[in-house]
């Protein structure tokens, strides 16, 4: 009896193996291709997924979007790249040092210089995805038209007699006034690990204004973050904002996904978000009156210079992918004029896309704000070896909030990691 069962089981197992083998070799050979696309949370909008569906209907090639929580994304991606298990398409932040160090694109990604859309990509944006003259990534993201700024609720400000802050004292005083009235001044989602770093790195133009030529000196290893008074002031003020309760009691548990919910509730006055945030709020909560919301620059270290960043979430095709042609086809599909228009129309906070011929949409008030003649490039793009350690800076800042690190310690730690990354990249400026 037992022998009979064993025999039957063995036969069934053999049959299964044989079927799978057959399927692999011939049976399922005509099956449709599914491209895997790995991205961090918040990088793939619903509009892009809808375009993915359209692409599937048209070509029969499906896209499997694998979205990973932001605080785990880069570790996971690098592990996959380093172990040779990369997906067909992977998302990454553009920026030349990131491309070399984080993703090693010359080895891990496909050269896209000759793709039909490459010549239409904004040259400033394309430069951030170019290594040794070859374009490796496609930035399908509203980079140049959108900046990270403080979005505020005008009604709350007016009701409490608060003027729009133009320096740190103004912001602190707004916080104190609102806290006294029992209103949470600001929503700061620290749990994601990346958002609170914006307060520091996006202030690059201010650091540059205070110390002209600083970015060039940092890149030549002739200056450090530690000891820079403007940076120290910014980090110390950041700690002051946390300690004074300006971000509420649960900032360490708050996530960026809740930004519109929190702001629409009318119980929080400010949030750092894209300059197109108002449209996003209106999309999620249609009763929102856009005139009730305004923007101002992050005023740490008394900053009044507009922060611009030509780098942003970018798509790369893995060189190990068995479906490179299909992946290229997908990127080309996304850049067709109709599809780009669909994307801009349906991504609430997008003001455009960095491609030739794409119309911009931005309310006149924000457009006037973005026309600020005092402007500069953010430090994660202007200074080498900052963006690759973005999440580490986030951890350092969180450790500073909880009292485990000092503001000086945060800056020293950034220098230390820059030196490690530069040494690993065999940067001549760090060879002496």
């Amino acid at each position, binding site marked *: 009896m037992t022998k009979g069962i064993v025999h039957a089981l063995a036969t069934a197992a053999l049959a299964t193996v044989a079927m799978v083998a057959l399927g692999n070799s011939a049976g399922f050979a005509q099956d449709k291709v599914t491209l895997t696309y790995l991205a961090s949370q918040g990088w793939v909008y619903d509009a892009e997924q809808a375009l993915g569906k359209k692409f599937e209907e048209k070509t029969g090639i499906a896209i499997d979007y694998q979205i990973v929580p932001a605080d*785990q994304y880069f570790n996971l991606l*690098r592990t996959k790249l380093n172990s040779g298990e990369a997906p067909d398409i992977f998302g990454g932040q553009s920026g030349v040092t990131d491309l070399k160090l984080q993703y090693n694109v010359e080895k891990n990604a496909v050269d896209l210089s000759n793709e039909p859309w490459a010549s239409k990509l904004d040259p400033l944006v394309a430069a951030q995805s170019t290594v040794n003259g070859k374009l490796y990534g496609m930035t399908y993201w509203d980079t140049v038209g959108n900046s990270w700024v403080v979005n505020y609720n005008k009604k709350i400000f007016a009701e409490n007699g608060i003027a729009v802050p133009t320096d740190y004292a103004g912001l602190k005083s707004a916080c104190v006034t609102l806290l006294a009235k029992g209103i949470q001044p600001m929503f700061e989602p620290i749990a994601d690990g990346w958002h609170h770093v914006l307060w520091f790195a996006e202030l690059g133009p201010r650091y540059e204004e205070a110390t002209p030529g600083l970015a060039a000196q940092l890149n030549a290893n002739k200056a450090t973050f530690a000891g820079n008074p403007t940076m120290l002031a910014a980090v110390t003020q950041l700690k002051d904002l946390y300690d004074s309760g300006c971000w509420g009691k*649960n900032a360490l548990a708050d996530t960026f996904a809740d930004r519109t919910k929190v702001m629409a509730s009318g119980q929080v006055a400010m949030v750092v978000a894209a300059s197109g945030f108002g449209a996003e709020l209106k999309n999620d909560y249609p009763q929102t009156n856009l005139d009730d919301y305004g923007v101002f620059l992050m005023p740490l270290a008394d900053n009044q210079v507009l922060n611009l960043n030509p780098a942003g979430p970018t798509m790369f095709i893995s060189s190990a992918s068995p479906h490179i042609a299909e992946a290229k086809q997908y990127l080309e599909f996304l850049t067709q004029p109709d599809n780009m228009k669909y994307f801009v129309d349906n991504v609430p906070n997008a003001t455009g896309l960095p491609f030739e011929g794409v119309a911009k949409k931005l309310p006149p008030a924000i457009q006037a704000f973005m026309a600020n003649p005092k402007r500069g490039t953010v430090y994660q793009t202007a200074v080498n070896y900052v963006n690759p350690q973005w999440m580490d800076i986030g951890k350092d800042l*969180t450790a500073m909030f909880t009292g485990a690190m000092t503001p000086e310690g945060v800056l020293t730690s950034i220098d230390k990691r820059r030196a490690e990354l530069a040494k690993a990249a065999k940067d001549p400026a760090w060879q002496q």
Partner: protein
Amino acid sequence: MYAKHYPFYFLVPVLVLYFVFFILPSLLGIGYSFTDWSTYSDQISYIGLDNFRRIFSPGENYLAYMGNTLIFTAVTIILKTVIGLALAILLSEGVKRFANFYRLAIYLPAVLPTLVVALIFRSILHPATGALNMFLRSIGLDVLALPWLIDARLALYSVIGVDTWKGVGYITVILLAGLQTIPRDYYEAAEIDGAGFWARLWHVTLPMLMPAIVVITVLNVLYGLRVFDIVYALTNGGPGYATEVIYTEIFKAFSMGQYGLGTALSTVMFVVLLVAGYFVIRLLERSSGQE
């Protein structure tokens, strides 16, 4: 009828496989921990003890992460064993109705994937909207509604709590099986001699259960020292670096492409596990010697 001893060459294939797939990678790993092997360079150079110097230098936080790993291991062993034993005794003696249902309910968390458990608990332990704090506030215990995962002093213990909740069912099952092997006569004899519950527990249950307790201790030591997934998914080492353990650092080193440093950290853990294993096996031998 059959020869008692097989010739040695019967063992050779297994030994070769074991050597190639277990011993060799471990030795290679130890070897690489003395190099600067990284993803940034094709050359691998011997750098002596540099990686180890870095791990044990006061400028780095690795010693604190080792401390977290040891606290996690020690506290989870105590909690899982004590709670597991209490539940096992309750299930084998206390509960008469629906005993099988309770056994299933207690074992269930062990079956759930760690990632799922962590995501659920991230939501339950949210300081403002989490179910735990909302429940505590609703019954007037606002004082106990703490920022479980975001307070640097509390976060490690919250992780330990969640891990205990998940792992205690597994320990209970092993102890339950152990309890059922203890003959009833011993308890009856002890009762006749006037032994109460605690005396029976101390003089009959615990000595008879020692082999099972040693087994779960070995399992818990190995699990605790190598903990990774629950920490990674629940806090990712945060807030700041408050719940960072050695294996989250090893993962970080590998994901950064610093293979030399990663293997050095693994080597340190290998030595710690070897020492811990040695003492636990000594304990095991002592306890089986007593029988």
